[in-house]
């Protein structure tokens, strides 16, 4: 009876550990769906940008992929299962720690330099691919331009950057998400409230300008006005 009630409890609150699920606690056996905390709404959506990003690396292994969204079990499993080396940066956390709500500080060259040293201090041409997700969407123009430049520098020639922008309109607040790879074409997206939006306009023209130093930029317009952008160095 107590075993039954324990299992019922686990079912209701969702598994917390491999011991709860009864699955072996290894990379391959991680739960398919992430466990959203209270207030987080998971949603699964297909992603042509993701398909294009990993499609570019088809048949290759041993590449270096940087994920700016933090370390999620799903993304680690997916990328390492393809034989690549996974690098993680909790970019928005460092962004928040560095600037907080101080928008003016994002134009200060000293602060921009400090932020980039904390978050993207890598040798030039280190990565074959960078998954930026929506990390660039909350930055003011000066910081955004410096970040795009640094991302380009740390990418290898012919390397790819995937980024996502939620709106082409000017808004005060935009939703904030975490992105977990389910398979080559599917993302699980979990909303974590809202953040102050950038003053930058992320329509096609704005994005072309942002990534103008890249060799090519490709857009995929998805539902909810979501733009997936693949930039190739």
């Amino acid at each position, binding site marked *: 009876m107590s075993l039954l009630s324990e299992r019922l409890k686990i079912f209701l609150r969702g598994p917390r550990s491999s011991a709860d699920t009864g699955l072996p606690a290894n990379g391959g056996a991680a739960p398919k769906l992430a466990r959203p905390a209270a207030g987080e709404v998971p949603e699964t959506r297909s992603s042509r940008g993701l398909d294009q990003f990993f499609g570019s690396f088809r048949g290759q292994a041993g590449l*270096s992929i940087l994920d700016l969204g933090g370390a999620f079990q799903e993304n680690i499993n997916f990328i390492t299962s393809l034989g690549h080396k996974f690098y*993680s940066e909790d970019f928005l956390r460092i962004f928040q720690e560095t600037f907080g709500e101080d928008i003016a500080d994002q134009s200060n060259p000293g602060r921009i330099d400090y932020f980039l040293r904390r978050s993207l201090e890598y040798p030039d041409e280190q990565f074959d691919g960078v998954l930026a997700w929506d990390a660039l969407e909350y930055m003011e123009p000066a910081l955004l331009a410096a970040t795009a430049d640094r991302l380009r520098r740390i990418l290898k020639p012919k390397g790819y950057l995937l980024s996502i922008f939620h709106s082409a309109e000017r808004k005060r607040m935009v939703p904030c998400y975490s992105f977990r790879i389910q398979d080559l074409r599917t993302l699980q997206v979990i909303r974590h409230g809202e953040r102050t939006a950038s003053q930058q306009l992320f329509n096609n023209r704005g994005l072309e300008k942002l990534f103008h130093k890249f060799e090519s930029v490709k857009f995929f317009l998805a539902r909810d006005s979501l733009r997936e952008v693949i930039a190739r160095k």
Partner: protein
Amino acid sequence: MEPESSRGGSATIGKAVKIAGQIFSREDLYVDGDVEGTIELMDHKLTIGPNGKVHAGVKAREVVALGAIQGNVEASERIEIRKDAKLVGDIKTARIVIEDGAYFKGSIDIVKSEPKAAPNQPRPQPVSAAAVPVNAAAGNVADAKR
């Protein structure tokens, strides 16, 4: 927090202890204090407790992090990074489990763990009546060297 019962048979560095130097252990080790240097537990499990702060290169069979690690980690079998843990460094391991909420900055290199070669079966030897018993405790402690 690791339950007390699961730590039976392992050496412990308590939360009020600070060690600077090299630690080699031939048994499991639980670190809830501060360690700066290196930690090597080749065939054993290292647990960094919630109060643990490790500023060291780590090599172990299995690593469970509940506290903070700054340094590169090699876990030949697996590493588990729990919810409130913080790990800054590069990881080499066969398997990784990371909970949501954990902070990780660095790289992950998944290396296939090589199956251990079966030890050669020793040929039966005639036993001398004066065989000396091995001191089981020798070398079975965590040594902190300055």
